């Protein structure tokens, strides 16, 4: 019963209209525009999250400093923040009349209702998922392993790349998949901060909302695309721990030694 309840809406997206209509919907201009906008903004947002988030998470995990717990709590805040609050907050910070509005317009930048706004909204709501998982993954590494790397002559950068990154790989991958999924489904903050302009800021999620009372079949087609992407992410999350083992301890987590 419960499983049926959870599966029925997903199946309904594919069964409600003939497959031909579904494919036609996917080929429509609105759907293709939404795919392009989503791909572009997601790619930039995820690049930002990985490139800035990974070293930041490593430093937070490795260092002990005053206010560390507070920093971690603040990072987690966007996780529990309702998307509407995130949207109004982004407007209040980066909007034309926002806190940074004067500085941004002095630079000739107007962020709201542009693709930059989509990127910011996605990064804001999705990055905490990655950061949290990445901090946990780095913390799980036996601290003697990076220490050993240093005594073997490795610089902090080499220790990060050769030891910490591969050992945390599984956790980083799983965290990134969740963050990617959250970002691709982002709706509330984006529609408030970036609007829903087809071909500019209208992502797949926004396109469904835009189309569902004018062209329900098209909305279904876009929905089907997102289902496929989401299912692929879920599969990746399930498979990641299987192919990258990231045991943190050099002895105890492993199978019994040969002589035993």
């Amino acid at each position, binding site marked *: 019963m419960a499983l049926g309840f959870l599966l029925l809406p997903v199946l309904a997206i594919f069964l409600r209209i003939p497959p031909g209509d579904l494919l036609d919907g996917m080929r429509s201009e609105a759907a293709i525009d939404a795919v392009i906008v989503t791909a572009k903004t997601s790619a930039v947002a995820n690049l930002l999250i990985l490139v800035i988030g990974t070293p930041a998470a490593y430093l937070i995990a490795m260092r002990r400093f005053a206010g560390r717990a507070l920093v971690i709590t603040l990072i987690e805040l966007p996780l529990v923040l309702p998307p509407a609050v995130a949207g109004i907050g982004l407007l209040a910070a980066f909007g034309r009349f926002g806190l940074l509005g004067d500085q941004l317009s002095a630079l000739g930048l107007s962020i709201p209702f542009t693709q930059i706004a989509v990127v910011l909204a996605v990064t804001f709501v999705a990055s905490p998922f990655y950061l949290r998982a990445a901090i946990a993954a780095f913390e799980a590494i*036996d601290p*003697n*392993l990076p*220490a*050993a*790397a*240093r*005594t*073997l*002559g*490795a*610089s*902090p950068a080499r220790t990060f790349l*050769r*030891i910490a990154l*591969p*050992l945390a790989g599984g956790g980083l991958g799983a965290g990134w998949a969740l963050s990617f999924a959250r970002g691709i489904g982002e709706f509330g903050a984006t529609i408030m901060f970036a609007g829903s302009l087809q071909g500019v800021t209208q992502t797949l999620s926004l396109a469904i909302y835009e189309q569902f009372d004018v062209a329900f079949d098209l909305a279904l087609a876009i929905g089907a695309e997102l289902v496929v992407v989401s299912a692929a992410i879920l599969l990746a999350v399930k498979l990641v721990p299987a192919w990258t083992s*990231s*045991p943190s*301890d*050099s*002895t*105890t*987590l*492993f*199978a019994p*030694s*040969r*002589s*035993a």
Partner: protein
Amino acid sequence: MDKLALRLDHPLRSFALRVELEVGRETLALVGPSGAGKSSVLRAIAGLLRPETGRIALGSEVWLDTESRISLPPERRSVGLVFQEYALFPHLTVEANVAFGGRARVEELLERFRIAALARARPAELSGGERQRVALARALARDPAVLLLDEPLSALDAHTKGTVRAELGELLRELRLPTVLVTHDFEDAAALAERIGVIVDGRILQLGCSAELLAAPASGFVASFTGANLLPGSARPGHEGLTLVVLDSGATAHSVAAGEGRVGLAVYPWEIALSREEPADSAVNHVRGAVTSLVSLGNRVRVRVGPLTAEVTTASAERLGLREGDLVVASFKATATRRARKQVRAPATRG
């Protein structure tokens, strides 16, 4: 070859680590109970722990000098540190683990440590002894000027420990590097090191070769740590120039060591003979008691008799037909007793 000289003062959780050492081309063992600060000394030398004040230098090369704010990062100190659980990189093969320290000598080291056949294996697939050899090979791949070993034998089971210890001793004699080895086992220290420092609560209580520590333990703690029986009692001059010690257990013992007042008499287990009847030989001290435990150590048997631990050959234990509960006499000569120099606290436990 340069000498390693260090002076450290660093607050730990419940005491201050205060150590001054000079290590030449020799192996120096730091022995002491867990939490005595032994590993902190190694981490400070390697640069993984920055002491509050101190100076560490290898010859004329200063690694740390808190006064002139010098502190080289670990990668710029020429050390090979073998971690207690070896800290092998689990995602790298044996070969890649060794090559991480330096590529030049990888093949030679794999051969030298008999791990060439395991070059493609991951640490998880290795036995304890193999892991230890990989850890040593990796530490030496960098051609370090100083070797640091943190409990190199404690991760091994008793079965492999003996062989590995002999191999390690041979290696250390061959390398002749300034080596600091940390262990909680006095026997390991005595087998591997030229000099032994007994460290408790961050201070070195006594530093000397194992014979010196056995012959003249600086304190009751050192005595009991070296494996001696420590018998507290009150001493006064006795007949024939000997010292008479009334032990706290009520028995009396004669000692060649001079002393008066509270003393601790140290007697090593291998100086104690066991018999069924009180023997009429020159062994002047007898303690009668029941056998409370028998532990076989290969060709020796460790027998607990009342307050004493004796070690006798398996042959003589068999000849006596020793069983738990048997009443026996433990005898030791007055010349076999040493007096622990400092005031004796309650006998400390080993390990």
